[in-house]
Every structure is written in structure tokens, then in C-alpha cells.
């Protein structure tokens, strides 16, 4: 699983990455993290509000920092 954190490096993106890493550890998922800071690349996903969470090229979240529970909920069906 490739997880991309989209955002220019503001606090929100750092928080999102921390929460997602925690969720990944909790669920025991084998995932690679990538940071996407280039604006053109961020926008190529159709995202206008950062931070964004992209898993295997699919946008799961944008525009707000989710709760850890929400991230687990989003990642769980993708583990199989």
C-alpha cells in the first residue's frame, strides 16, 4: 500500500501524517509513506484544500485533519 500525504508542509499535514502512521501501525498494515508538496502534483488529484490523504492513488480525504478513528475506518477495508 502506498500512502501519500498531500500538503505544503503546514501543521495540518504533519498532524495528518502522524495520525495515519499511527493508524497503519494499529492495523498492522505494510505501507510506504510519501509526502507530496508540489502544488501541481497536489492539484492533479483534484484537491484544492490541504491536507489530503491518498492511498494507492485514490483520494480518501481532503481539507481537514480527521480523527484517528476515522483514518482507521477508511484504511481497514483496503487492507485485504
Amino acid at each position, binding site marked *: 500500500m502506498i500512502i501519500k500525504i498531500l500538503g505544503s508542509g*503546514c501543521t495540518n499535514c504533519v498532524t495528518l501524517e502522524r495520525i495515519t502512521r499511527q493508524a497503519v501501525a494499529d492495523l498492522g498494515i505494510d505501507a510506504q509513506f510519501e509526502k507530496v508538496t508540489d*502544488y501541481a502534483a497536489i492539484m492533479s488529484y483534484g484537491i*484544492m*484544500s490541504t491536507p489530503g490523504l491518498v492511498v494507492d492513488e485514490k483520494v480518501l480525504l481532503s*481539507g*481537514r485533519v480527521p*480523527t*484517528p478513528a476515522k483514518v482507521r475506518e477508511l484504511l481497514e477495508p483496503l487492507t485485504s
Partner: protein
Amino acid sequence: MSVAERLRPTTPTRRWVGLVGAALGWFALYEVNLPLWDWLVYDLVGLDPSSQLGSGVHFFFYDSVKIALLLVGVIFLVTVLRSFMSVERTRAMLGGKREGVGNVMAAGLGVITPFCSCSAVPAFIGFVAAGVPLGVTMSFLIASPLVNEVAIGLLFGMFGLGPTLLYVGAGLGIAIVAGFVLGRLKLERWVEPFVFETRLGGQVIDPAAGLTWEDRIQMGVEEVGVILRKIWPYLLVGIALGAAIHGWAPQDFFTQYAGAGNPFAVLIAVLVAIPLYSNAAGVMPLVQALHDKGLPMGTLLAFMMAVVALSLPEMILLRRVLKPPLILTFVAVTGAGIIAVGYLFNAVLA
């Protein structure tokens, strides 16, 4: 588990009961705040209400609690209401709008759209890619920080409805006119070229879609925590300065230099405010203390607006998409609008 997650209700009935309970608790705290500190500072500790120390200490504690309560209430309400809007929806509404009508809409939407200045760059690119004119985009970018929910809540709590409406009206007016002027100046050549080449890919994601009431309420609770954590140092410094002015500054000290008699007062207030990096929450206690000392409302509103609308960190972010001459023009036009509003209010309200 975060506080917000633990507070998450399990049934709709519990959710509404919880909300009503929280609202009642809020009003109770707000009502006991003044008698509590009267009793603690003047009766229990025995400080003299007419002394500098007494009134300064009382102002500090009473104001801290009052402002904290106002902020919690306002941020929660605004976040829940704003969860129905998003930058993506705003962009869809503004796409293809002409200047004029577009500027008015953009300023209004700038107030009600949830917007973090860290998203200023993708939002700017997204607007331009959707064919929103540069001036209309600027109206949005000016109104969004200028008409600030924290400032609205605090102004309303401290000065009542009149000054709050003046502030909102003035902020909208400045955003509309400044955006329109910037659009007329045809400054597209000072936008970084990559902006016009960047395209929003695939389907545009709308973060406001598919939210439940539980989500919105949880977002409200979380946002209260996030904003309070971010602004409390500014708030405490502001209140402490306000308390010092309240208790110790001589009655005529400020009116002598910045009162209605000084024609340059508004201009100086705005120039001082631009490099001053604070936010509405940090500035408002100062504004209140200075108002008590007899400074006119127009000067104070101009000062506050310049602090929140013209901040260096936002300029640095916008530098990624705008060339320096356009940023300078943006600051000059917005600053001129704020100065004009300050003088207008001083003349009208005097």
C-alpha cells in the same frame, strides 16, 4: 482517544441533549463570571476596586474567562455552520462570474467558507483554473481573513451589535472594492506563470460532501481545541497588556496622542499593525482597553483589521503564486481601504 471522540454521542437523542446541556452550562458560566471575580478579587482578597492594582487584576481574570467563553461558543457555532460550505463549492459558484457581481459574491463567500491560509495557494490556483477573474479571487482572499469569526464573536460580546455590524459591513466593502480595483489594474502579468498552466486533475473532491451531524459537531469541538491551542499565548499577552493599560495608563495618555484630535491617528494605527503579527483574539483585549481610555472606534477597528488582514506569513505564502509587485499592490490597496474605513467611522460616529 481524543476528547472529541469520547464526547461523540451514540444516539441522536443523546446528541441533542448533550448540545442543549452544553449551551445551558455555557450561559451559566457566562453569567457567574462577573460576580465571581468581584467577590474573589474585591471581597476575598480585599483589593480596592478603585485602585490600579485592583482594577488591573480584576480586568485580567474577568476578561480571560469571558473571552475564553466567547471564543468557545463562537468557534463551535461557526465551524458547524461552515461545515456546509467548502472552498470547492465556492469555486463552483464563482466560476464564470463577471467582475462586479463576482466581487460581491466572492467577498460574501470569503466570510462563510471554511478556509485555512495554508490552503491559500491551491485555492488560488483552483480559482484561476476555473476561470474566476483575478480581482474576484482577490476579493475572496481579502474577505476571508479580514472578516474573521473570532473577531465577530469578540466584538459582539464586548461592544454589542452595532460595532459588529459596522465591522462586517466595512470588511465586506473593503474586500469588494479592493478586489475590483485589483482586477481593473490588469495585473495578470504579475501572477507566476505556472498558475495558468496548472490544472485540477480528475474529479474535484468536495470535503463538505457526505458529512453527518455527528461529524459536524465533532468538527466543531475539535476546532475549538485547535484554535484555542493556537491562540492562547496571543490571548494572554493581549489581555495582560489590556489589563496594564486598564489599570495603569493615565486616562488622557492615549487620547492625547491617538485621540480624535490627531488627524494621523488612523494612518499610524494601520502602519503599526501591518508588521505586528498577532490575531483577532490577541488584539481584541487591547482594543477594548484602549476604547475604555477614550480612543475612537474607527481608529481601533482599522488597527484590528490591519492586524488580521495584512499578515506577513500570508504574504510569504502568496509569494509562491504572486510576484512581489502584485503583493505590494495588494497590501497597498487593502491598507488604503482599511484607512478609509477608519476615517469614515471616526467621522460618522463622532
